[in-house]
């Protein structure tokens, strides 16, 4: 997709005024966070599992080349094929080749962020192949022609009414003319429309939550079972996955599964966790005849050994989205690219460049909730800080913004002057705020005071109070 991350400020203004979006974001906060808390509290070993999960991924990344080789060896031994793609274009060409040699006209798809990352659907369409999204959320945004707004709930920004409108518009061609208003009916209609598509598809494309080196297995996690129908019914199953999805053993995948669903939806396990290894065996009565794994790099290998390596531990649970006050206020689309939320603010600049995406790592109050809930203990705030430094060094951002930062840095390095100035400022603000103890209007802070009062400082500066306290404490 064409990034709009450089329009972040405009995107934010739009998002804040979108009442449907604000209702949806309230739902995210209310549902996901409390469910995660309940699930995590119910498992005393959760933090120990997180530590193991971090160790597994760090070990794997330190031996990434070797585990990828083992994985490839096992896929081939089980009758499958591995294709390596350095860039999104490589990956798209490989997938198109595979679809064309399968004589495919319709392709069903399970939810895959990597397919979004490489913009697979428009490419297939341009070559005469119809991609059909089967995850209900992905299906809804495919009808709406929008990118996902959340990694695990692509259509969480849509209201039921908007879904009804989309179904009326797009299902008319199947003879569905009645506007449905109940969620249960909408789900049933999507099921009815999609069932024949599964059966007619020549190729099924899924992502992978994990790849397992020990066995050459790809793993997907869903609640709907759509990824299962997608891969079991067509003759060819193509897995599109980025190369950091690899883990060594079935045991390691099991540990990551224990933290994944709990962090994502608060479930102990998602409804379907499916391990796929090669094509159907000689005496299997069903399942795909061909199994292909497309391994995408897209700049990830270059992150190894850098200050951004830890983002490669990410298992895409979405916990950082659900707990982020910024995401919770603006939703996913404002970020302007495929990935949003805190992990997106770190990952997106690696893919579309910091020039394009420098607003994203700046959009954080550094409250640290994302890192606190991350099952993989990824230091997201620290990495956003690294991006900010790079953006500053590259002279990105407005001149006023840069001047403010430079002045602040200059001042912060001169404590005596800083303290003297802040003493003056505190006294000035206290005087200005009389007699109510708050201000209706303040120069340089109209952004704040236009909508609410600014409380005036009520005493001395922190340093003054601290010094006084120390004096009092001395015997």
């Amino acid at each position, binding site marked *: 997709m064409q990034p709009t991350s450089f329009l972040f400020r405009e995107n934010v203004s739009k998002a804040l005024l979108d009442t449907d979006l604000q209702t*949806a974001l309230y*739902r995210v906060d209310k549902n*996901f966070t409390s469910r995660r808390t309940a699930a995590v509290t119910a498992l*005393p*070993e959760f933090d120990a599992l997180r530590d*193991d999960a971090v160790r597994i991924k760090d070990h794997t990344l330190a031996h990434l*080349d*070797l585990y*990828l*080789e*083992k994985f490839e060896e096992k896929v081939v031994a*089980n009758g499958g094929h591995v*294709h*390596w793609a*350095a860039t999104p274009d490589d990956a798209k060409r490989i997938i198109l*080749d595979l679809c064309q040699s399968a004589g495919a006209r319709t392709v069903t798809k399970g939810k895959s962020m990597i397919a979004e990352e490489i913009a697979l659907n428009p490419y297939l369409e341009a070559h005469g192949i119809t991609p059909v999204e*089967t995850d209900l*959320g992905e299906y*809804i945004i495919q009808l709406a022609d929008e990118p996902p707004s959340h990694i695990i*709930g692509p259509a*969480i920004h*849509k209201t039921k009414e908007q879904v009804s409108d989309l179904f009326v518009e797009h299902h008319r061609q199947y003879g569905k003319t009645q506007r449905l208003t109940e969620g249960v009916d909408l789900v049933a209609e999507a*099921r009815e429309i999609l*069932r024949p598509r599964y059966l007619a598809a020549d190729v099924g494309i899924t992502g992978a939550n994990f790849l397992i080196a020990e066995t*050459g*297995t790809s793993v997907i996690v869903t*609640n*709907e*079972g*759509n990824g*299962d*129908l997608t891969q*079991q019914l067509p003759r060819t199953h193509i897995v599109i996955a980025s190369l950091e999805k690899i883990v*060594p*053993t*079935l*045991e390691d995948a*099991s*540990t990551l599964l*224990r933290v994944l669903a709990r962090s994502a939806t608060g479930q*102990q396990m998602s*409804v*379907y*966790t*499916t*391990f*796929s*290894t*090669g*094509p*159907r065996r000689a005496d*299997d*009565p*069903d*399942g795909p005849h061909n199994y292909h794994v497309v*391994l995408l*790099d897209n700049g990830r*290998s270059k992150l*190894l*050994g850098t200050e951004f390596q830890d983002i490669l531990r990410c298992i895409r649970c979405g916990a950082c989205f659900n707990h982020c006050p910024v995401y919770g206020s603006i939703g996913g689309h404002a970020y302007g690219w495929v990935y949003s939320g805190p992990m997106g603010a770190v990952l997106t600049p690696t893919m579309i460049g910091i020039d394009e995406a420098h607003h994203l790592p700046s959009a954080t109050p550094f409250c640290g909730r994302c890192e606190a809930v991350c099952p993989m203990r990824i230091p997201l705030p620290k990495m956003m800080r690294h991006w900010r430094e790079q953006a500053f060094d590259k002279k990105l951002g407005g001149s006023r913004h840069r001047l403010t930062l430079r002045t602040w840095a200059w001042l912060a390095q001169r404590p005596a002057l800083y303290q003297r100035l802040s003493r003056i400022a505190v006294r000035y603000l206290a005087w200005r705020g009389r007699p109510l103890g708050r201000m209706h209007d303040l120069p340089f802070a109209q952004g704040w005071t236009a909508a609410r009062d600014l409380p005036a400082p009520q005493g001395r500066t922190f340093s003054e109070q601290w010094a006084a306290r120390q004096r009092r404490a001395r015997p």
Partner: protein
Amino acid sequence: MGGTAAKGAAVSVRDAILADIRGALGPRHDAEARDTVAARLKAHKRNVIPARSAVDHAHRTQMFIEQITATHTTVTTVVDGAAVPAAVAAFLKQHNLPAAAVLAPDIADLGWESHPLLQTRTGVPLESDQVSVTGAFAAIAETGTLMLTSGAGSPITLNLLPDNHVVVLRRSQITGTLEDAWDALRAAQKPAASAMPRTAMFVSGPSSTADIELTMYLGAHGPRRLHIVLVED
């Protein structure tokens, strides 16, 4: 697919990616790293295992039932395999379903012919089939999860296409954890063959979605109902 030229290009992309990774990882003792990786892949070492699954078998069964019934799944217990067809017939009647089911070959020998009113067929499901009955490879008490594997006797689409899925599970198949299930799978596969079947599905309830306003609805694409007939053995 492609010609030799395309294949040649694919190989070089592979080598370029691997070279990029090695370059980024920096210098290391290669033989040592390879030994570390080989040893880890062979050891099947377990990581932290939640303590709650470490209970005796009776409690494990109870834990499994409690966990899976919490996710909209129903369970009935029968004394032996011969009682399964009657339990399936009762389930169909309870939900006003036609007395017909498609069976997995694995559980086709439970005396279905003694229930002439129950129409059964063995094999892969058709679009029109409303009910499937399958076995299971194992079940996991820790999370209330069924482990269903593909094979000649267990067509994988039986677990997905019909609206109602009945699983015949023997009590002895209930293990504590995923790791126990992997050990059982490794032991069951013939040494010469792959350690894995084409598909190993872990199922924790009927198909569901929360993609519309985060409200949960059952029966998104897979079965709307999941029912377990638990056989004492």
